[in-house]
């Protein structure tokens, strides 16, 4: 297994059909139709040009599983820090930062969007709050939140699975987790949009300033909460982060600076939200569109091992996070393709998870895959999703509560009318009207 990009290794390219060649030549992930239904484009890249320069995006798309693995295992050559911070408020860096210094309590660079060795220290200080054992203790509370929410729509017979279930569900859980105020939910949605918009390509100056104003409001809010927990810790994640410390081998003690802690509370609030909501929205999508899925889920709902596998195969089969970025810090050859210094790259997880050399018959939903843990829906390497145990738990509890409370779930619109949020980063359904009966 390569821990560094191994320059010598080149795997086969496969011949393309005329249609595939056309797609490779003309296709781009900026095209909304391709964004919504990207699989043919991924297949063409994986076969013929596995690390493909997408001119529309000005980015190199890494599409084979082995290459994603190699790139994410080398966090020095392929920098998250540069891939993230250099595109933030692109072209308007200074104004963005100054705005937050004046109105938002400070400019707090994302401590987790960094490179080793700094990143290693930050991860160590965060990790205790996210262990699988810690998350397991939260299961009863999470179940209560999810159960109440689904019960609140169960009698209606119809709802929007994304807007009425998936989105409020994940926000409520993160509000509990972090220890924020009930009633803050709608603000959190707005704040999330603003943070994400700062790293998307297109923003006018007015939009940048509007988003900065949202981020300032978010920061002022979390700083207030953090000050409260500094004085009086509680059983919540803000307290964990504010008071986090680890002892090094030489006996010295590490703590987060206040600036770092603010950025990490902000990151946790944002990173765990849309992603998990997308996973649950996608769950309703597969339950209503893939034959046999609802029956399969019903048949395994009380079998913990199979339910865990169901959730993991769902993450492989419909990964919520489509692609995240890196910047290449020096000319580097990966699997025969030279990536130039300064190039922006995307690790295309939903293509990697469809790589037939790793997952035979990748479109088949198969909970018995023996190498399930190999999927890249949560990334891998030093930046592997830190919230993975919480994400799994939320999706699992949602799956269980859906089956317990609802039956005959059906899509209320034709599949072809399902629309996706226009973004490269996630594969997120905008709205999913469904009908069902209360069980």
């Amino acid at each position: 297994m390569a821990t560094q990009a191994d320059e010598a290794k080149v795997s086969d390219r496969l011949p393309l059909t005329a249609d595939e060649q056309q797609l490779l030549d003309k296709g781009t992930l900026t095209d909304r139709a391709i964004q919504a239904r990207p699989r043919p484009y991924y297949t063409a890249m994986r076969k013929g040009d596995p690390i493909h320069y997408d001119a529309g995006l000005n980015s190199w798309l890494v599409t084979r599983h082995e290459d994603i693995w190699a790139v994410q295992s080398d966090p020095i050559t392929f920098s998250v820090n540069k891939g993230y911070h250099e595109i933030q408020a692109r072209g308007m860096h200074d104004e963005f930062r100054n705005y937050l210094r004046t109105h938002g309590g400070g400019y707090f660079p994302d401590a987790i969007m960094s490179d080793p060795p700094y990143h290693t220290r930050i991860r160590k200080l965060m990790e205790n709050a996210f262990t699988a054992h810690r998350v397991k203790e939260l299961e009863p509370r999470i179940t209560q939140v999810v159960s109440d929410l689904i019960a609140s729509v169960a009698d209606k017979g119809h709802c929007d699975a994304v807007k009425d279930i998936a989105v409020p569900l994940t926000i409520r859980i993160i509000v509990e987790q972090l220890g924020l105020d009930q009633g803050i939910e709608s603000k959190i949605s707005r704040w999330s949009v603003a943070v994400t918009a700062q790293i998307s390509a297109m923003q006018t100056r007015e939009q940048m300033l509007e988003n900065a104003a949202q981020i300032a409001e978010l920061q002022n809010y979390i700083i207030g909460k953090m000050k409260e927990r500094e004085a009086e810790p509680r059983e919540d994640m803000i307290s964990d982060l504010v008071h986090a410390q680890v002892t090094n081998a030489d006996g010295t003690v590490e703590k987060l600076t206040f600036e770092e802690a603010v950025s990490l509370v902000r990151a946790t609030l944002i990173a765990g939200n849309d992603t998990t909501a997308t996973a649950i929205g996608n769950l309703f999508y597969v339950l209503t569109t893939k034959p046999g899925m609802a029956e399969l889920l019903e048949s395994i709902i009380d079998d913990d091992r199979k339910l865990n596998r169901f959730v993991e195969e769902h993450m492989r089969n419909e990964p919520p996070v489509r692609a995240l970025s890196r910047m290449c810090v020096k000319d580097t050859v990966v699997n025969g393709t030279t990536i130039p210094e300064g190039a922006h790259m995307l690790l295309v997880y939903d293509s990697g998870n469809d790589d037939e050399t790793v997952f035979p018959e990748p479109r088949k939903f198969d909970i018995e895959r023996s190498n399930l843990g190999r999927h890249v829906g949560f990334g891998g390497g030093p930046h592997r999703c830190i919230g993975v145990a919480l994400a799994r738990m939320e999706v699992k509890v949602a799956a269980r509560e859906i089956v317990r409370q609802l039956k005959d779930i059906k899509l209320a619109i034709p599949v072809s009318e399902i629309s996706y949020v226009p973004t490269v980063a996630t594969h997120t359904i905008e709205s999913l009207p469904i009908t069902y009966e209360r069980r």
Partner: protein
Amino acid sequence: MGNLKVTYTDVKGETRIFDDVEEGTSLMELAKRQGVEGIFGDCGGGCACATCHVYVDGDWFEKVGPPDDIEFAMLDMVADVMKDNSRLGCQIKMKPELDGIAITVAPSSGF
């Protein structure tokens, strides 16, 4: 510095002996610190990634004991390389009863 002994065989079959391991250190932390090949520890010991998978050699497995449910669920994600003596290195903390333990790094889950 401690005085506990661990015999670690890495994923390439090379065996190294560490005899100054401190009580409380996990087998994942030890491997990361010493650069034992094949142990990645992506999730930092959170029992959430299975990149610290080891086989516990011989009779030591009895002393270490079986994985709990949460750990088993993670090992089950790498079922193709899971064995009866599989454990996650991050979940085994060194203590005097384990002085002398021998373990082998499991290969990564298959392609």
